[in-house]
């Protein structure tokens, strides 16, 4: 088939391709931080260029500059060798640049078609032309394997579907270059496969893709080139064919990293935490937990896997007395603790590492010392009657800071100026110092750099060796596979199945995370 050179320059969506985009010498300063430090980056049509780095390495900031959400302090952007200025997202869209944000930029109360039409010129201005938009959505969906129903409101869609809407939104606007910011963070392994199929189709059609991630195996699977950022600087840029996991991890962290842990066998003890028939409502009043049964034994880590929003947060909150159960019970060493207050549960030897550490784990405006003493400040020797004992407090805090390797200038530093990893270590210090018999850890390493993650994992394994019964709730399947003795999968408020780690396979777990029952998934 012969095509004219003009046609070859066009994507199937009818828009011009971006043959080459280059960012040169980009610098972005935030008050007190140099977030991006003279970074050069480029991407070509028909390739996936991965941007790899830890949280806070500057990946998202760099891409937000490209999408016009931030303005660079220095540096230039060249599109097809021509210098361009991008002052706002509408400039970026006009140039054919699209972005899939980590937190979806969708309006939940609007339908898929309305979300796509938002901000576009209608063919019947000033009236909406949702029928035209819907037809075009269905056409794009067919081309790229992005199944969605244009008439459904977005709040009814699963996370994977929402991401498809985001991609359609970008394609609809003629994105020739698409930035994907941690697109797999919220997907099941099968959904990741579907996404990759779509991305490969787009690359084949001549789109240029930038794939931001901190997951090594994904980057290796999808990209042609990998650029690693650390502390706002480019550490290196390598063709994917020549890259190895260990080498990339070293570049990301700046030192050797343990990619797997040595998990010594521990003989599980008696059942510490027993959950039976537990039901509870979500914030919206819908049923979030629909009869949960789980047991956690002493010296065991039970991993709870699942895509976010399937009841994990509600389960942790009900166990820890922060949300009322509508039915069922929670037993701690045979004693019914359903509906007991967090203070009582603390006394009974239970600890909780909440999912939203800035909201539920610490008080933003308090100092390191104050946050460390949130629970024990009213006990001797830290206070006497109504008076705090500053000396005892200072000593305890100094111990915790040393033992848990919390990097802080001093005890009086406001917690909000610490990094995510250090804040999480502080929460961990406060919760583990009590030597709990039961630990509920919800997303303990989310948004935490690899170094701190490694450290937190070691501490959790240490607790396991000590005989703590740990319920590890995580959306990161790799984390669960690395730490848990048994793995339970939650889907829409129900436990789909529980498997031993030795028997666990990623594919089976992925199917379970999508709601397929264990027996069926295994068979």
């Amino acid at each position, binding site marked *: 088939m012969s095509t004219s050179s003009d046609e070859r320059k066009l994507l199937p969506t009818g828009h011009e391709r971006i043959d080459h985009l280059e960012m040169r010498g980009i610098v972005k300063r935030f008050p007190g931080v140099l977030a991006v430090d003279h970074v050069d980056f480029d991407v070509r049509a028909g390739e996936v260029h991965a941007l790899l780095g830890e949280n806070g390495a500057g990946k998202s900031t760099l891409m937000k500059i490209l999408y016009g959400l*931030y303005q660079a302090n220095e540096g230039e952007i060249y599109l097809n060798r021509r210098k361009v200025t991008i002052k706002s997202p509408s400039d970026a869209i006009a140039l054919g640049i699209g972005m899939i944000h980590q937190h979806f930029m969708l309006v939940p109360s609007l339908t898929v078609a309305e979300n796509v039409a938002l901000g576009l*010129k209608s063919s019947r201005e000033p009236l909406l032309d949702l029928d035209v938009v819907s037809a075009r959505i269905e056409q794009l969906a067919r081309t790229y394997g992005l199944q969605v129903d244009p008439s459904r409101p977005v709040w009814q869609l699963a996370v994977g579907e929402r991401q498809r809407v985001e991609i359609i939104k970008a394609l609809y606007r003629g994105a020739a270059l698409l930035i994907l910011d941690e697109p797999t963070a919220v997907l099941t392994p099968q959904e990741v496969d579907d996404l990759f199929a779509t991305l490969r189709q787009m690359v084949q059609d001549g789109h240029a893709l930038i794939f931001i991630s901190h997951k090594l195996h994904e980057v290796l699977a999808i990209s042609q080139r990998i650029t690693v950022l650390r502390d706002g600087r480019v550490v290196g840029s390598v063709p994917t064919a020549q890259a190895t996991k260990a080498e990339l991890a070293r570049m990301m962290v700046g030192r050797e990293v343990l990619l797997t842990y040595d998990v010594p066998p521990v003989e599980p003890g008696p059942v510490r935490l027993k959950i039976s028939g537990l039901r509870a409502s979500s914030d919206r009043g819908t049923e979030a937990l629909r009869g949960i049964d789980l047991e956690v034994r002493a010296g065991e880590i039970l991993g709870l896997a699942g895509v976010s929003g399937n009841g994990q947060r509600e389960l942790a909150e009900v166990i820890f007395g922060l949300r009322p159960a509508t039915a069922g019970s929670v037993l701690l060493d045979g004693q019914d603790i359903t509906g007991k207050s967090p203070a009582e549960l603390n006394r009974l030897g239970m600890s909780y590492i909440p999912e939203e550490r800035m909201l539920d784990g610490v008080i933003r405006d308090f100092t390191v010392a104050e946050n460390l003493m949130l629970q024990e400040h009213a006990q001797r020797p830290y206070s006497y009657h109504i008076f705090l004992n500053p000396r005892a407090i200072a000593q305890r805090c100094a111990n915790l800071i040393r033992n848990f390797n919390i990097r802080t200038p001093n005890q009086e530093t406001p917690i909000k100026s610490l990094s995510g990893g250090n804040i999480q270590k502080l929460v961990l210090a406060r919760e583990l110092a009590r030597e709990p018999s039961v630990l509920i850890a919800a997303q303990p390493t989310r948004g935490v750099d690899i170094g701190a993650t490694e450290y937190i994992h070691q501490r959790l394994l240490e607790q396991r060796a000590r005989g703590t019964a740990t319920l590890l709730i995580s959306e990161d399947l790799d984390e669960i596979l690395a730490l848990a003795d048994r793995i339970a999968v939650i889907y829409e408020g129900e436990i789909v199945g529980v498997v031993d780690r030795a028997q666990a396979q990623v594919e089976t777990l992925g199917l379970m995370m999508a709601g397929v029952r264990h027996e069926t998934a295994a068979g």
Partner: protein
Amino acid sequence: MIGDLITASVLASGIRLATPYLYAALGETFGQRSGVLNLGVEGVMLMGAFTSLWAVHEFTPAGATGYDAGALAMGVLVAILVGLIMGLATAVINVTLQAEQGISGIGIYLFGLGMSDLLFQKVFGGNVVTVNGFPKVYLPVLSDIPVLGEIFFRQNLLVYFAFALVPVTWFVLNKTTLGLKIRAVGQNPEAADAMGISVARVRYFTVTLGGVLASLAGASLSISLVNVFQQNMTAGQGFIAVALVYFGSWRARGVMFGALLFSLVNALQLQVRTKGIDVPDEYAAMAPYVLTIIALVFASQRIDQPAALTKPFERGE
């Protein structure tokens, strides 16, 4: 006894009394749908009420006995202008300066309350001035329908226009690209911004429109319903209008039903008082306000509340 109370004329007055609520609450609906709560409606209403009355008084030729169409048009025009200015000021405060909306609204209310009274004292020396307001317009054919004709189709222009605004509001919000932008900005301004929509521009538009409609609400009191001006003559109707938006779940139709409920109760309590029925005056007079509280407790469906209501928007974290 009930038959005595609920007559066609009472119902007609109920329809009429809904006018200020409708203007103010529909205007507020636009603002809240885009994420801006304007508690200052009452103040804008007072300014609209006074300035439109002043304009009608000023432009009515000396010695005129009936209404003067030109003067009435000037009254409406002045009210629109005043609403435009106060709406823009509200937008500057709430959108550009990102004020705490619960507090800034009270400020706007107090400004309107004080300024309208100050002007009243300066211009009219605080003396009651009556004007010839909008006359009733009997719609041909329709007004001859028995009972219904008297209730619905023998009203004045401002009343008809207020009710016409209900479907217009619904249409603009649900069927136009502008309406889609307004709804998106109120639910998720970050998403709207990422799609290249100017959140500030949309909110300036809705808040200014809300100001214009609030001012017209005031005018509908002073040059269409009672035809006088007194200090604080709105007596909380602007605040009730804000509550009606919640009551109506941010929908034009719900707002209209709310407005009618209140105005009918109002008309009824006036009737109770004029008939001299043995109910203490105070109870009758407080009925609409008690109803506001009860209605808000039971009827508001918060699920539909714009997620970004009262939250100023600024790009970036």
